[in-house]
């Protein structure tokens, strides 16, 4: 792995990750944000490959393949299937208008840079430079959870959050020990599975999947 | 042994002088109002007549009806035994301390109030209620004024206070004792039901306090009640007179001293009674709800006399 190619690849993958997250915040249509989610999966797999080769980790290839399969293929497919099943294609009127969404997204990214700046200091190698993107992804995922009204888009927000955490873990510790990484992705898979089942039942019982309507349980 | 003699002298003196005092007060009042009055001996004759008559009892009345008059009479007698009317030699075991004297006085008041309630008529209850309210409001003034006088003396026993004051006459005229004496005079008026707090000779339902309580009693009960109330007046008036003018009070139980004490005591008492009666002629009875202002005023006097003792002197 030549020395100057590594930082460029890191920059490319993390830049792609950040771009897809911002586009998701911007976009309204459900199908498009699922596509962006798949792109994010691919970028994450690329990141794992570059970091793995840079460190010379033998299992990097296997982990990259696992990430690619789970995050780029299985999850988006499951999301698309359940979206089509309940006929949910168009995101509902958002709680906040688009301009505010984007301004806040920018602010959150700035916050991520400030925080990681003080945490990691001005890291020498390229990986340390890219960590703020991970944090930004986490915050943007959270922000999507906050502003989206449909259950499926909330799922997407949760997955973006999870991708952010995976980015941070890959960048900081050169790949987690395999068992914990396996456990984490398994859990994410199960959570999405359950939410998928719940979305289908919600459609059956409530007749809609608009989360902001779910207000009966209050004090 | 001599102390018991002194107590007997006090009792005899009080029993003898009381009807005369009331007679003098009534005659002075009558003369000032242009009437001839019933003469000095009239109260004595009234009491003897009443004691001979038979009292009545309604069904369902408790022994309080017959016990209260005797209790009032007993408390007044004990009161006059403890107060240094003639001599300042006190009983060693019952020194006539400030609070004991006030409590014995209050025992008589309570007996009277319960008698008022026992009669079961509206007047008895009204009189008893008013009497207790006045007694409650008077209490602070009594204790505070005697506290002011006992300050310099250092002991709260009345006979010791009178002895100390007679020993150093200079202390009589300073503002502390003057304020306290005035407060005490108001207390005596309120406690024994004289004008302006209560009119002893009225039977007008809305104004009477003392009379309302003894409305239902008759015969010897009424006799004891009247005599008891008069005795209280003698004791309290004698106490104030001796505190104001402590001369002539026998320091010990010698025969000569006692004789002088009795004489001066009688003169002082009758003069004070006449003065009180004379002043009463010019006073009208206060409405019941103005009486607390009078008592509050006397309380402030007593309070000033206490703090004046520190701030000024």
């Amino acid at each position, binding site marked *: 792995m030549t020395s100057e190619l590594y930082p460029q690849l890191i920059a490319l993958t993390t830049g792609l990750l950040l771009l897809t997250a911002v586009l998701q915040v911007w976009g309204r249509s459900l199908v498009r944000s699922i596509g962006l989610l798949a792109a994010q999966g691919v970028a994450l797999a690329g990141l794992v490959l570059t970091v793995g080769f840079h460190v010379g980790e033998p299992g990097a290839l296997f982990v990259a393949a696992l990430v690619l399969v789970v995050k780029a293929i299985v999850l988006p497919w499951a999301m698309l299937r359940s979206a089509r099943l309940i006929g949910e294609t168009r995101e509902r009127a958002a709680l906040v208008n688009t301009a505010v969404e984007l301004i806040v997204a920018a602010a959150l990214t700035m*916050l991520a840079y400030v925080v990681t700046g003080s945490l990691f200091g001005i890291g020498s190698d390229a990986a340390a430079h890219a960590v703020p993107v991970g944090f930004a992804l986490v915050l943007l995922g959270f922000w999507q*959870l906050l502003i989206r009204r449909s259950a499926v888009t909330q799922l997407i927000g949760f997955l973006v959050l999870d991708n952010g955490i995976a980015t941070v873990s890959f960048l900081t510790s050169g790949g987690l020990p395999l068992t914990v990484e396996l456990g984490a992705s398994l859990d994410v898979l199960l959570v999405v599975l359950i939410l998928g089942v719940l979305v289908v039942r919600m459609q059956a019982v409530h007749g809609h999947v608009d989360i902001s309507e779910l207000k009966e349980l209050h004090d | 042994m001599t102390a018991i003699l002194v107590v007997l002298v006090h009792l005899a003196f009080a029993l003898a002088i009381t009807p005369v005092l009331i007679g003098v007060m009534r005659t002075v009042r009558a003369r000032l109002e242009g009437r001839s009055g019933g003469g000095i001996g009239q109260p004595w004759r009234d009491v003897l007549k009443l004691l001979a008559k038979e009292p009545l009892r*309604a069904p369902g009345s408790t022994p309080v009806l017959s016990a209260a008059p005797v209790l009032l009479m007993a408390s007044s007698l004990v009161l006059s035994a403890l107060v240094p009317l003639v001599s300042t030699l006190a009983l060693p075991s019952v020194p006539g301390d400030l609070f004991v004297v006030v409590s014995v006085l209050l025992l008589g008041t*309570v007996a009277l109030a*319960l008698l008022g*309630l026992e009669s*079961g008529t509206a007047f008895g209850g009204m009189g008893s209620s008013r009497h207790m309210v006045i007694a409650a409001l008077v209490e*602070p003034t009594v204790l505070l004024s005697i506290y002011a006088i006992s300050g310099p003396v250092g002991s709260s026993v009345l006979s010791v206070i009178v002895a100390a004051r007679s020993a150093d006459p200079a202390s009589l005229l300073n503002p502390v004792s003057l304020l306290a004496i005035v407060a005490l005079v108001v207390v005596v008026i309120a406690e024994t039901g004289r004008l302006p707090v209560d009119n002893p000779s009225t039977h007008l339902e809305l104004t009477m306090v003392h009379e309302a309580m003894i409305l239902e009693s008759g015969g*010897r009960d009424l006799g004891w009640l009247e005599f008891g109330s008069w005795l209280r007046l003698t004791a309290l008036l004698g106490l104030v007179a001796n505190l104001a003018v402590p001369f002539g009070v026998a320091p010990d139980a010698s025969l000569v001293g006692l004789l002088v004490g009795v004489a001066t005591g009688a003169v002082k008492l009758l003069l004070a009674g006449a003065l009180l009666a004379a002043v009463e002629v010019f006073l009208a009875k206060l409405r*019941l709800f103005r009486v607390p202002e009078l008592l509050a005023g006397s309380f402030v006097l007593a309070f000033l006399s206490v703090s004046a003792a520190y701030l000024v002197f």
Partner: protein
Amino acid sequence: MNLVDAGLFAQLCLAAAAILLAVFAPVGHRNLAAGIGVAALGVVGAATGVTALLGVQGAGLRVPLALPGFDAIDPLTLAPDRLGGFFLAIVGVVVAVAAVFGIGYAHGPVASRTGWTAFAAFALGMQLVPSAGDALTFLLAWELMAGGSTVLLLADHAAREPVRRATLWYAVMTHLSFLLLVAGFGVVIAASGGTTWSRIAATSINEPLASGAFLLLIAGFATKAGLVPVHIWLPRAHPEAPSHVSAAMSAAMVKMGVYGVLLVVLRLLPMGPRWWAIVLVVVGAASALYGILQAAVQSDLKRLLAYSTTENIGLIVTAIGVGLLLRDSGQTGAGDVAMLAALLLAVSHAAFKTVLFLGAGAVLHATGERDLDLLGGLAARMPWTASAFGVGALSAAALPVTSGFVAEWALLQALVHANSQVDRLIAVVLPITMGVVALTIGLGLLTFVKAFGIGFLARPRTPAAADAHEVGPTMRAALVFGAVVVVGLGLVPGPLAEALATAVNAGGVGTVGATGLALGGFGVLLHPLALTLLTGAVLVPLVAVNFAIARRAPRRDVDLTWGCGGERTSPRMEYNATSYSEPLVRVFRGSLRASRSVDVVRADGAPLLVEEMAFTQETVDVIEDRLYLPAARGVRRFGDFARKLQNGSIHRYIGFSFAALVLVLLWVAR
């Protein structure tokens, strides 16, 4: 394992025995069995208390706990000192008398299994509070007492609506006192590093902490003792509790508050600054005056007695405050007498308040009524109860030859003989205190003349009062024993005062003539026996004369009292409690907000003719009205506002988490 430790261990066993008896005794004999069990607990408690008061110090009974203690020893230690012994004795006697009364009186829910178990736990809690040797045991006994009394208070919840609300107020105020104590002890333990009294007393705590701890602890004990700003549970809870329970609560439980104040002031934080004493005097005097004012205008007998408890506790705390003030300004003679007066007031209040509450219980048992306006003429029908209640009333009004008289006498001697020329503050404070105490005694006189006169004399105002009957033997025994104790304490103050003086290390107190009390410092003495002899000497000839006259003119029975010549008026025309205190309400308009309502029913067709007219007067507890009701409304508004917080929208919940995440990130990255 000396006498005191044996006594403490015996109390624990007896409590367990009482609970077992309560649970397993057959229904018919449960009252008797459990009553005797609790009475035995009380008697043993009193015995232990007296031995501790006389100076026997035990090694301390230890009870191990699951939580690691502070300094090596197990957290739970029971080791009463002299002061603790005195209060243990009071509680023991009161519990015993109340239990004996309860045997005949308890019926319905309070005589159930839970009722008697709660009474046993309540008694044990009260007896462990003064014997606790460290903070954790004290708090445990404190809450056991609170829990037991709350359950007992709930006894009649199905019969009367106000019981539930009263219990809620009582539980909340008791918990307020508990939390204040935990905070206060927490501060003190933090400063001294140990939980036992001896360890805390040994370390001198620096100023800001000591004052903070003092205020917290005094606030906590004031809440339990029912001092003015925090007294409102007392007039609500005591009337609703069964009478033998309210007797125990009023006579013994509020004394735990007084014991706490003394514990803080004399043992834990001894050399406090002067303003501590001023705080005690002000709170005490305010409670005394406010309590007796409210008592004077009550027409419900048990509420009247409850407010009079606030008054008496106010007097006790005033005495403690004056004692501290005088000791602080160097006049130890007067200061010691004031402290002694506080203890005398405590024991005398315990005696006469028990008799009064049990008397009220007997009246309630016989007539089913508590309201004085509906009673009357009970003296003829219930002679035993009337005479016991009369003796209690005499003592409450501080009239001669009763325990109340001796206690008030001691307090006034301390006030009179304090040299007010020392400095400006004392010159102003002492006379005012004297005035307030005297006014309180005067109003107390009026209150108890009203209570006895309206309740027991004249003619019965309702049929319920008319067919009242005397109460059972055990209840009469308890009443008479109480009255005898009241008169006994009044007649023999000397030895009692001498024993008490050692508890508050007061000098210059002696006995004169085997029974009288002599205050050496001032050369003043009170010899009640001699006073009785003197009165007897005067009374005997008087009665003889009266008897002689009576033989010649015997009393004649008529069926009509004179009553200004009208025919026999109906009993409802008599003065009742409301009208008796009506002049007082007019005089103290400021602090006795009286709301009067006169509703007139006019004859239909002739508006000028009045068919029926009703006058009702309701005096409102100003503090409760101005302070507590707005506070309750404020708390409810806070509840409603908080409920809007949890409005069900998931976005709001995620917003909370998001905000927390951002804040933590900023905080960590600063």
